[in-house]
């Protein structure tokens, strides 16, 4: 029983970090129909900047904040300088974002080297609680809380604020939003930077969760995020949340019994969903 609770919390915690990556991917696709193959790079930059700042200042809050800031800045620069030039051309978008993934990934190697680095925890989040024999690791709980709080915040922004209404309207019909006098390009840039910031936060949290960061983590986690959005439905907020938790738990459970098959089972899950419901579990219902 203990083992299962342990696996479950681990799965949900990983799922939450993946959710932060997937939700930006999903909203960006919903709004601008850009499938961002560079999204994992923001995640990786978040992880590296987080670990780096934490190593320098020993302040985890500062590390998370700077990761989010760096993510938002890279996202904004990348969107303004390159992606905004290819809106409407799906082939160029995919080729371009993959190129950005390549460049951003190589730049991580230039700054921090190609080897695996450790990503330490702050002292107050290390260790675990023992509740009547059930062991709960503090940092996992922290990840789940941060993930859930961010999910709630994103949900409230989408549902309750003016910006959220514009984004949801833009998902339905960007031309109409523009016809109503709203500069949709600015909204695009903002949402892209926001998505990149969320991904960077996810990366900064994921680093200490696994304990180590490497230049391959961008692609690996991006792949999981793709599986999540295909399962949940591209462009769906709820879909990315449920999909991420599902993928996280499946990954944790399968890794326990057969570590080699974790990715295979998740991909199989995705293939089954594609066969039964090609638009994903929550696809087609808007954000």
């Amino acid at each position, binding site marked *: 029983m203990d083992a299962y609770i342990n696996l479950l919390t681990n799965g949900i915690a990983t799922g939450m970090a993946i959710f932060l990556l997937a939700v930006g991917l999903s909203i960006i696709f919903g709004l601008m129909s850009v499938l961002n193959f560079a999204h994992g790079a923001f995640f990786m930059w978040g992880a590296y900047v987080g670990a780096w700042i934490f190593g320098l200042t020993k302040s985890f809050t500062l590390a998370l904040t700077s990761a989010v800031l760096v993510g938002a800045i890279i996202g904004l620069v990348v969107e303004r300088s390159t992606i905004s030039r*290819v809106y409407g051309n799906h082939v*160029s978008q*995919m080729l371009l974002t*993959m190129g*950005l993934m390549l*460049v951003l990934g190589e730049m991580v190697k230039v700054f921090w080297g190609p080897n695996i680095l450790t990503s330490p925890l702050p002292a107050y989040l290390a260790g675990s609680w023992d509740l009547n024999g059930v062991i709960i690791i503090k940092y996992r709980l922290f990840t789940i809380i941060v993930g859930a709080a961010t999910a709630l915040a994103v949900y409230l922004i989408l549902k309750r604020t003016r910006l959220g209404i514009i984004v949801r309207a833009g998902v339905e019909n960007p031309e109409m939003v523009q016809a109503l006098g709203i500069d949709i390009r600015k909204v695009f840039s903002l949402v892209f930077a926001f998505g990149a910031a969320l991904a960077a936060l996810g990366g900064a949290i994921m680093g200490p969760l696994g304990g180590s960061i490497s230049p391959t983590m961008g692609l690996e986690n991006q792949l999981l995020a793709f599986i999540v959005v295909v399962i949940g439905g*591209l462009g769906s907020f709820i879909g990315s949340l449920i999909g991420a938790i599902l993928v996280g738990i499946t990954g944790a459970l399968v890794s326990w019994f057969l570590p080699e098959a974790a990715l295979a089972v998740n991909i199989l899950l995705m293939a089954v969903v*594609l066969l039964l419901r*090609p*638009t994903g579990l929550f696809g087609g219902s808007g954000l």
Partner: protein
Amino acid sequence: MKMKKKLTVVLLAVLLFLVAFIPFLTDSRATLNLMTHIFLWAIFAMSYDILLGYTGIVSFGHALFFGSGAYIVGLLLKYVGASWTNTILGILASLIFGLLVALLLGSLSLRIRDAYFAMITLAFAELFLVAALKLRWITGGEDGFSFRVPELLSNRVVFYYLSLGALILTTFLLYRFTCSPAGRVLQAIRENEQRAEALGYDVFRYKLLSTAVAGVTASLAGSLFGLQMRFVSASVLSLEKTIDALLMTIIGGSGTLYGAIIGSALVNLVQDWFTGLARVYPLFERWPLLFGFVYIIIVLFFPGGLVRAFSGMTETILFKWQARRNPADNYTPGKQDDAVRVCLKRR
């Protein structure tokens, strides 16, 4: 028009002649290996061009076909024996495997939005990569394994001509394919999918055909690559291999086939050069960064590729020259797409 065609034929003949004589001019193993590399990568890049350039489908998992081709031939020769029968069986098996995987991935994802194919090919290629890394007792994991090939095939010159022959044959077959009625439908889908559908074409089936042709061709390239290296490691399945093919296709100009050959030559020569430089100047170990920037610049500013930009230039010069000689000729350069015009002329 005639002028240009004659020029092309003469140039092509001269080039082929030169390439066929390289083994007589040099006995440097490095040069022969590099040239063989270029031929095989050209086949791989052309197969990518069928998807990207002729059908407008983006795949990020093309290395899956290339790598599994290399693995199938390698495993067969290593575990069953280095005979000619096994070599031919291995190539055939990898072609069939490529066909089946292409049909599977295509039917999973091609019915939905175009972005799905890119994601799903990426996912499955990663899956194969992980499998090759984890099934250590069969594949040797990251270190890979080497294997023996039939005596004759380990002769560099023989293999040089074999891969040159394979390149010529594939180019011819793919060229005929792209000019066939089915190939033209693919180009129609690339230009406007809704319109092709409205004309009554089953877009899904044609896209599936395109992935099948591309998959089989890529598997051929991969199995020959395995035979050339006499060694397979998991890197043949990595995303970098797909990106290299993608880069070759778009540098040369997608939708032309010959662009992929030129791209293969360019990318392989530059890579070879940089690998040499990296031994002396560690700075050049980061050459993928430079490639990434070049790639982004081409996608953004030269979507037709460097060959188109260049041939557009020569065409304008030829046109001006012709216009001076014969002012009545009202041919305007660059009016039709290269690939389409080549086909139209044959009919």
